[in-house]
C-alpha cells in the first residue's frame, strides 16, 4: 500500500505539474521533471494529451521516460516523427503547441529564465548549456509551465542573462513586444506553486505544498516573495498518482540499468 502522506518534494512538484495539464493539450516536453509530469498526466487524467518532443516525435507515448529528448522509445511510440526544421517551423512556430514546459538554471520574479551563463557572457564564471529550444518555446507556445527546484541561487533578484523571455519587466512587457501568447502562467517547485499576478505579472505564491511554511519558501528565494491573499495548500498527491509515477520511474530505472 502506498502512503499518500509520504511523498518527496520532487514527487509533489511533478504531480502538481501533471495536474496542470488538460486532456486536450498539445505539449512541448523538455527532459527531466517536465517529461515525468507530462507522462504522468497521460497515464492518469489526460490520456488524450499530445506529447511532442523537439527531436521531432509527435504524439509519443513512451512506456519509460527517455534520458534524452531523442531516445528511440519516443520515435517508436509516436504517431509520426518529423525533421527538426519542420518541428520548429510548422509545429512550434506554427502556433500549434498549447503548453510548453521549461526549466532553467535561474529564474527571476517575472519568470524570465537563464540557462546560458553565470558571470559575463564573454568571460563566464559558469558556462551553462544555452538556450536550445527555449527562446522560441517561450514565445510561441500558448502558455508556458515552469518546473524548478527552489533555492536562493536559482530564484534570483537579477538574471545575468535572459535566455528565454517570461514577463520581462512585468506588466504589459509581452504585449509591448507584440507577443500574443500568455508566457509563463505557472511555476511548479518542490515547495510551492507560483503564478504571475494579474496586473504586475510578478510571480506570486498561490499554493504551499503540505507542511511547507511561508518562511521556508522565502528562505529559498532571492527576492522578497509575494503571497496570494487566498493562499491555499497544494492538494497532496493521491495514492494513484504516486503509484503511477513510481511505476513509471521504476520502469525507467530498470530500462536504463538493463542496457549496456
Amino acid at each position, binding site marked *: 500500500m502506498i502512503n499518500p502522506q509520504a511523498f518527496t518534494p520532487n514527487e509533489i512538484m511533478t504531480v502538481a505539474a501533471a495536474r496542470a495539464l488538460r486532456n486536450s493539450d498539445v505539449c512541448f516536453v523538455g527532459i*527531466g521533471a517536465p517529461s515525468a509530469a507530462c507522462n504522468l498526466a497521460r497515464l492518469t487524467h489526460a490520456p488524450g494529451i499530445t506529447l511532442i518532443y523537439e527531436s*521531432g516525435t509527435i504524439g509519443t507515448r513512451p512506456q519509460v521516460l527517455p534520458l534524452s529528448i531523442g*531516445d528511440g522509445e519516443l520515435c517508436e511510440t509516436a504517431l509520426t516523427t518529423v525533421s527538426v526544421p519542420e518541428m520548429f517551423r510548422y509545429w512550434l512556430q506554427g502556433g500549434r503547441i498549447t503548453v510548453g514546459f521549461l526549466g532553467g538554471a535561474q529564474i527571476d520574479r517575472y519568470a524570465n529564465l537563464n540557462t*546560458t551563463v553565470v558571470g559575463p557572457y564573454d568571460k563566464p564564471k559558469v558556462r551553462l548549456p544555452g538556450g536550445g529550444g527555449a527562446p*522560441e518555446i517561450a514565445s510561441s507556445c500558448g502558455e508556458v509551465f515552469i518546473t524548478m527546484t527552489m533555492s536562493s541561487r536559482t530564484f534570483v533578484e537579477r538574471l545575468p542573462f535572459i535566455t528565454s523571455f517570461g514577463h520581462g519587466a512585468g506588466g504589459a*512587457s509581452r504585449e509591448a513586444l507584440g*507577443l500574443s501568447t500568455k508566457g509563463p502562467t505557472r511555476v511548479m517547485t518542490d515547495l510551492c506553486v507560483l503564478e504571475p499576478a494579474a496586473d504586475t505579472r510578478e510571480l506570486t505564491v498561490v499554493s504551499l505544498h503540505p507542511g511547507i511554511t511561508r518562511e521556508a519558501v522565502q528562505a529559498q528565494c532571492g527576492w522578497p516573495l509575494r503571497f496570494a491573499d487566498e493562499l491555499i495548500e497544494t492538494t497532496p498527491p493521491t495514492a494513484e498518482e504516486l503509484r503511477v509515477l513510481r511505476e513509471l520511474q521504476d520502469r525507467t530505472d530498470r530500462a536504463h540499468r538493463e542496457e549496456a
Partner: protein
Amino acid sequence: MATLLSLAEAVALHVHDGDVVALEGFTHLIPFAAGHELIRQRRKHLTLVRMTPDLIYDQLIGMGAADRLVFSWGGNPGVGSLHRLRDAVENGWPQPLAIEEHSHAAMANAYEAGAANLPFAAFRGYIGVDLPKVNPRIRTVECPFTGEKLAAIPALRPDVAIIHAQRADRAGNVLLEGIVGVQKQAVLAAKRSIVTVEEVVDRLDAPGYNATILPSWTISSIAVVPGGAYPSYAQGYYRRANSFYKKWDAIARERESFLAWMQQNVIEQGPEAFQSHAAAAR
C-alpha cells in the same frame, strides 16, 4: 556520385585543417566513429557546427581540434554539463574556443536555408532575449507586405557535413529513418559530405514512397562503419547507450581522466571498435 571509401580515406580526402565541419545527428545517428577519425588524424583549427554538441564535440574540443564552435545547446542530455566544452570556454584549455551561439530554431532554419540555397532564413524568434546582444550574426528582416520585423540568421553552408545513416545501397543512395534531425539539410547545405552507414545492401527496403533518402549524387563519400553511432544509436540496429552518457560525466570531469580515456579508446583504436560497442547495446 558517392564514392565508397574507408572512413580514414574519406576523412583524409574531404576534411582539411581550418574547415567548417558539421557533424549532425539529433540524439539519434550521431557520427561518433567519424568524429574519432577526425581526432586520430589530428585535424586542427576546425570550426565545429552542431545544434547539440553532445559527447562527440566534447571529445573533439578536449583534444584541441576546434578553434570555434557554432551551436545551440551544449550539454550532456539528461546528465549535465559537457566538461571539456566548459573547460575550453571558461579556462581556455587545451586552447581558447570562440563560440557562436544560437537557438535550436535559428540553427534548424539556418541549415534549412543552406539546403534551399538561400542566403538567410527569417523566423519568429529571439523575442525579448539577450542572445542578439552578444551574437552579431542575429539580425532582423522586415516583411515587405506587413512591415513586421522577424529574426534573421545567415544560412549555414559548411565545408563538410558528416552524418551517420542506417544503410546505403550499392549505387550509394542513403536511407535515414526514425529521428532524422537536420541531417538531410546539413548534407544538402554543405560543399562536401561524408556518410557513415551501418551496412551496404542490395536493396534499400525503404519504408514507403516518401522515405528520407539522400541520392548518391548528393553525397561525396560513404564509409561502412557498423556501430558508428555508438553511444548514440541507430534505430533498427542498436539502442542508445544511456549508461555511457552517464559514465562520460566522470570520465570528462578531469583533464587527466579524459586524456587517458581518449588515448585508450580513440587514439589507439580504429573504427572497427564500434561494431562490438554497438553489439552490446543491441
